[in-house]
């Protein structure tokens, strides 16, 4: 659908990103040598188990890591490296060109300020609208995310909203400035299926109308399939597979991706066969193994996997980090 934009330079390019956290027990290697890029109008999904480093990847790009965290590598946004920017420079991009929808709807809104104040401030700050215009804009956005009676609700405090409602407010807040890049961290987790559909439809419309690029972090492979073109699968802070939705869903090359797909309940499989999650646990991020990080849990592991497997790439821009899979 967006084939005309495919050839242009990437909007955001993550190169060799490493994110570590200093803890009393040692350094937590949350993200390791990660590379990916996204163009305007593209939609990229990042999937992976809890703790895979999905959130910290985007936090690093936005300069929002916790104090004990540090990032190295590059995160080039419109030609400038976000990781090198001062807070003031970052603030020219954050909120206006890059919007973030955070994972936890219950705590991501300021409980001491009314919704209107929290929404208006973004628009006023970045678009120079006056208070009334900004409020009108915010009300429209709330209406768009299907919050009933937005004129009244916007004067309320976060605790007067249910979790799902707050999630929608957060989504609306992210969409307010029509950003070039929208990062949505589990934007639909707290919502029921119909609303999930509406929100992902809304994001799709934003992408199609304003050519917004979207990075969607999600556990929900259904939502991913509905909205995204490309999928990045992360495991223990690394990219293990990356490709189009079709490639990754129907032709997964990495054993971890296959495990992930098998753990999704599906209608075309009898119940007892479904939901077989991958046995074992992700490796300890304090002491990552040298070779393939999935080796402990991999059904196809061999001695060759003690060496770090290379990233394999086919001519369809489908990449995976495993010694196997090239011949299929």
């Amino acid at each position, binding site marked *: 659908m967006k084939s005309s934009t495919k050839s242009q330079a990437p909007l955001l390019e993550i190169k060799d990103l490493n994110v570590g956290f200093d803890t009393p027990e040692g350094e937590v290697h949350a993200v390791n040598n990660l590379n990916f890029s996204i163009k305007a109008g593209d939609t990229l999904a990042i999937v992976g188990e809890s703790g895979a480093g999905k959130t910290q990847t985007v936090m690093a790009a936005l300069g929002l890591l*916790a104090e004990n965290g540090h990032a190295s590598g590059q995160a080039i946004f419109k030609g400038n490296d976000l990781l090198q920017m001062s807070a003031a420079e970052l603030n020219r991009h954050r909120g206006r060109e890059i919007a*973030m929808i955070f994972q*936890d709807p219950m705590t*991501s809104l300021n409980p001491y300020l009314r919704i209107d104040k929290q929404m208006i401030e973004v628009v006023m*700050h970045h678009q120079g609208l006056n208070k009334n215009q900004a409020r009108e804009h915010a009300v429209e956005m709330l209406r768009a995310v299907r919050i009933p009676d937005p004129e009244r609700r916007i004067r309320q405090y976060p605790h007067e909203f249910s979790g799902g409602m707050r999630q929608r407010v957060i989504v609306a807040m992210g969409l307010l400035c029509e950003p070039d890049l929208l990062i949505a961290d589990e934007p639909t987790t707290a919502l029921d299926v119909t609303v999930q559909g509406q929100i992902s439809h809304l994001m799709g419309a934003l992408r199609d109308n304003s050519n917004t690029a979207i990075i969607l972090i999600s556990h929900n492979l259904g939502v991913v399939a509905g909205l995204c073109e490309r999928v990045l699968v992360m495991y223990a802070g690394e990219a293990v597979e990356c490709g189009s939705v079709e490639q990754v869903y129907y032709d997964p090359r990495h054993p971890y991706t296959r495990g992930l797909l098998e753990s999704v309940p599906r209608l075309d499989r009898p119940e007892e066969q479904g939901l077989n999650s991958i046995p074992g646990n992700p490796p300890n991020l304090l002491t990552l193994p040298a070779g393939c990080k999935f080796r402990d849990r991999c059904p196809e592991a061999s001695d060759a996997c003690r060496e770090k497997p290379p990233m394999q790439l086919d001519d369809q821009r489908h990449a995976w980090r495993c010694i196997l899979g090239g011949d299929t």
Partner: protein
Amino acid sequence: MAKHSLRRLLGLIPTLLLLLTVAFFLIRVAPGGPFDAEKALPPEIQANLNAKYHLDESLLQQYFRYLGQVVSLDFGPSYQYKDWTVNELIAQGFPVSLTVGLTAIVLAFFVGTMLGIAAALRQNSTVDYSLMGFAMLGISIPNFVIAPILILLLAVYAGWLPAGGWDWGVPSMVLPIVTLALPAIAYIARITRGSMIEVLHSNFIRTARAKGLSESIVIRRHALRPALLPVISYLGPAIAGMISGSVVIERIFSIPGLGSYFVQGALNRDYTLVMGVVIFYGVLILVLNFLVDLLYAWLNPKIRYDQKR
């Protein structure tokens, strides 16, 4: 909110009653009456005096008489200061104490929160460590230690400020107010630092930063109020602490405030005066705590909301 306030206000009554009762009976079981010093009094004069002060009635009668008096805001005559009623003594001393206390609490609030925020924003820096070291010192040095030392340094040696006395002039106010405020400054700085650091780690601050707001707006608009809430709830105990602190401060600086009267009354067994001051300050503390509670609720939309329902 109004209903809640009313309920809270009514809840103060048992405390008040307990205060009155404890104070009353403590004093009445006390060995030695107020006129013991004048032992040579002929019995009939003694009896007259006792009758005048209703000391000849039964304890229970006296209790209810006193209750009635207090309800009508009359603390009776002072035993020690002849010709003075306790009300007059309170009216005399309280404005002085109020001036010192009010200035001290305002000073403590502003200085304390500013130091606390400064430390929080430079967490684990030299500034932070030294500020918190000083705050710990401020908590640990009692009023009555710091006061004479300041007098010695600033009044006796340097001669910049008067060593004591009260003339409603600023120089005579500086030392008492500062010494009274110091421990509260230290506590408030510690509380503010802790809560500010906690708030700055919360998710909604991350959201605010992601909006591209400048750090100073993030702090002022988003972090300040929640960070100050614990300070607000500390104001209640701070006020109570200051009121008792004022007792020694007034004594050290020879300030004719209510605390001075109280100590004097206590040492002289001036029952009515001591009772009057205890009850007066007791009520004051209760009322101020109540106001602090209202302020807290007003600043915290969640509580406001819960109370509306």
